[in-house]
C-alpha cells in the first residue's frame, strides 16, 4: 500500500534548556513560567545564564544588578556577574 501525504500539521513544544522543575532563585517561580512582573512565558521574559553557570529570569537578575547592594555580583556565588554569551547566542 502506498500512502501519499497530502497535508500535515506540525506541532512543537518548547522549553528553556534547564533541568525540569527548577525555579529562579530570586522570585522562586519555575523557569517554565515567567518572572512575576510578566504575564506570559516566552521570548519577552527570557532567561539569562552567567559565566558562573547560574541561571535566572533576566528581569529578576537585572533588577538585582540595578541595586547598589548587588555590587554587580551573582546572587548565588557572589562572583562578578558576567553573561554566558554562548547560551545567549544560542537563543538568538
Amino acid at each position: 500500500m502506498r500512502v501519499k501525504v497530502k497535508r500535515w500539521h506540525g506541532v512543537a513544544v518548547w522549553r528553556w534548556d534547564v533541568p525540569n522543575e527548577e525555579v529562579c532563585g530570586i522570585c522562586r517561580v519555575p523557569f517554565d513560567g515567567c518572572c512575576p512582573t510578566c504575564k506570559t512565558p516566552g521570548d519577552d521574559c527570557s532567561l539569562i545564564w552567567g559565566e558562573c553557570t547560574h541561571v535566572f529570569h533576566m528581569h529578576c537578575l537585572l533588577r538585582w544588578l540595578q541595586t547598589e547592594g548587588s555590587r554587580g555580583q551573582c546572587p548565588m556565588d557572589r562572583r562578578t556577574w558576567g553573561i554566558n554569551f554562548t547560551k545567549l547566542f544560542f537563543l538568538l
Partner: protein
Amino acid sequence: MSALFTKRLSKELVDLKINPPVGIEVTEADTFKSWKLTLDGVDGTLYAGERFTLEFRFSPNYPMESPEVVFTGNIPIHPHIYSNGHICLNVLYNQWSPVLSVRSVCLSIQSMLSSCTCKEPPPDNNHYVKTAKASPKQTQWSFHDDSV
C-alpha cells in the same frame, strides 16, 4: 507593592507552614510588612530548652533588599546578639542576596546560636545599645569573627 514582593513572600509563607524547619515556627504573618517566628534552642547546645522570637520587617524592595531582623522579648545571650535584639550577622546586611530567604536567615541564626561555646553578650554591648538606631540596618557593622 510589586508582584515580585507579594508572590515571593506568599510562596515563602506557604513553604514555611507546609514544611517548617525543625525548631522554627511562624507565629504571626498577617501582613507582608512584618512576621514573627519562634526559634527553639537546639538540643545539646547552650540554648537547649529556650525559645526566642524573631521579628522580620520587609521593605517593598524585598527580596532585592534584606529584611530587618531582630530578636524581641527574650533576647538570647550571645557574643553577636545585642541586648536590644540587634544581630551582628553579615547576610542580614552587606552580604545579603535575593536568593536568601526567611528560612535561610532563620537557619543561619539557629546555627549561630548552636555553635556558641560561651554565653556572653558582645563586649561593646552597653555602648552599642545606647547609641544604636531603631533599625539594625542603620548600623555600620564590621564582621571580623567567623568562629561563632
